[in-house]
């Protein structure tokens, strides 16, 4: 089976010369629940932007289920759903419009959009807020709209860039259950998060990125030996774990 995502020697240099991603290679198997960790500015979001078409690549290749994401970008994008870190929506549009329009961009006809939008608004408990403008919604409701939008075309690869940032515990746990259901149904999920508990609970494979490169990559079990995921993460990123920092002080 083709990998869901194969990134080879990705390099991204911004116009002002900032090297956001140095040389990043990564393979995510189809059906995996993949945790993509790293400190702020490590290159996680830039990598995701390169995969989804928000950013251009300086060098390297990206394949989504074997489809070249640059040469055959339209085919590749049909396979991806993105829930970005920031609320990149028309703030004056309603949740129903936001989800429906995204379905339209992906070529879904009116009946498909209506059915899928109704289902997702219901699933994320947005039905009663469907006609409010996005900017009137609370942070948690906004996050649900962004997730519903990412799922409207039923993508094979779901990319979630800090999907639970700023949401309450109830929604976070409900979202975890939903993501696990989606993954059980065969959807491949790439998750970035600063909540290590979330990654520990959901993901089967983990990669840690620092300074634009993958510094550790493997099954979750390998990260759980010794001091657990947090220790392994801090060691991989070169940060000092608390007990070492404490002892030094």
């Amino acid at each position, binding site marked *: 089976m083709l990998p869901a995502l194969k990134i080879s020697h990705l390099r991204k240099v911004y116009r002002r010369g900032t090297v956001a991603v140095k040389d990043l290679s990564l393979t995510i198997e189809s059906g995996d629940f993949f945790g993509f960790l790293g400190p702020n500015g490590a290159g996680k979001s830039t990598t995701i932007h390169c995969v989804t078409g928000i950013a251009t690549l300086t060098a390297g290749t990206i394949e989504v289920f074997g489809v070249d994401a640059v040469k055959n970008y339209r085919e590749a*994008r049909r396979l991806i759903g993105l829930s970005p870190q920031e609320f*990149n929506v028309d703030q004056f549009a309603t949740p129903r419009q936001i989800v429906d329009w995204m379905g339209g961009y992906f070529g*879904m006809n009116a009946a498909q959009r209506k059915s899928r939008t109704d289902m997702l608004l219901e699933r994320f408990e947005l039905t009663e807020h469907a006609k409010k403008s996005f900017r009137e919604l609370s942070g948690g409701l906004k996050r649900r709209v962004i997730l519903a939008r990412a799922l409207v075309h039923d993508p094979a690869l779901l990319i979630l860039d800090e999907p639970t940032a700023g949401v309450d515990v109830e929604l976070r746990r409900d979202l975890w259950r939903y993501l696990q259901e989606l993954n059980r*149904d065969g959807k491949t999920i790439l998750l970035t998060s600063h909540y290590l508990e979330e990654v520990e609970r959901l993901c089967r494979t983990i990669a840690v990125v620092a300074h634009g490169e993958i510094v550790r990559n493997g099954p979750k079990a390998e990260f759980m030996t010794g001091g657990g995921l947090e220790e392994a993460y801090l060691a991989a990123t070169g940060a000092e774990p608390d007990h070492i920092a404490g002892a030094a002080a």
Partner: protein
Amino acid sequence: MSTQDVKLPPMGINWIGLGTIVRREVSRIMRVPIQAFIAPWISALLFIFIFGFVLGGRIKEIGGHRYLEFVLPGILMMNIVNSAFLQSTSAIYFQRFLRFIEETLVAPLSYVEMIVGMLVCVVIRSVVTALGILAIGACFGVTSVGNIAEFLFWVIAVSIIFGELGIIIGLWAKNFEQLNVLNVFFIVPLSMVGGVFSTIDMLPPYLRWLAYANPFFYWINGLRHAMIGFHEGPPGVGLVLTLVLVVVLSLGTLRLYATGYGLRE
């Protein structure tokens, strides 16, 4: 969708995606009807009243046409240009500013579909603006469209030119201030001296070259010919100029989209 059925057939033209860009933009325009339509209609009404009635009372006829009939095509063209330019600059800049342009970047839309979607909205806004001004002109008994095909050609072609210029400015602008640069320094001055209110014969001979060097002169002249049959200046120049600009600006806009200028990080 399961992992077993990720093989998708190749995509043709994404008509639904293109239509969705149009639906979304029309929805945005309808949120600001005063800015989009009422303002140009009031502006046109004031121009017709002041130049047609108050000042135009001193000029009885030009080329066998009432002065108000003569100025109406120019007023119409000024508003078409303004509507087209504002539609695309505001649409692109608003999308960039709020970052929801990323919605279309992550979707299976080609650059041509994205541009055509924007231009369809530009033409819709221009045509609605034009219809309103024609209706105002009809209230004064001066609306006449002698050649509908020629009229539509000028309305649509000029809308596309300024729609594409608006896209380019919208991609280039780093702040709201820069959005107005072209409008303030080129569009408004050139349109005001492009033969809206006078013929070339009314200008001193040593200034007539300015009119011939001004592209607005050819567009106003073309629309005036389509509406009342009045024409001045060298025939064919306006048509060639317009077609060349449509092709050059279309290629330029497509190039900017393909390279991601102002769109992608």
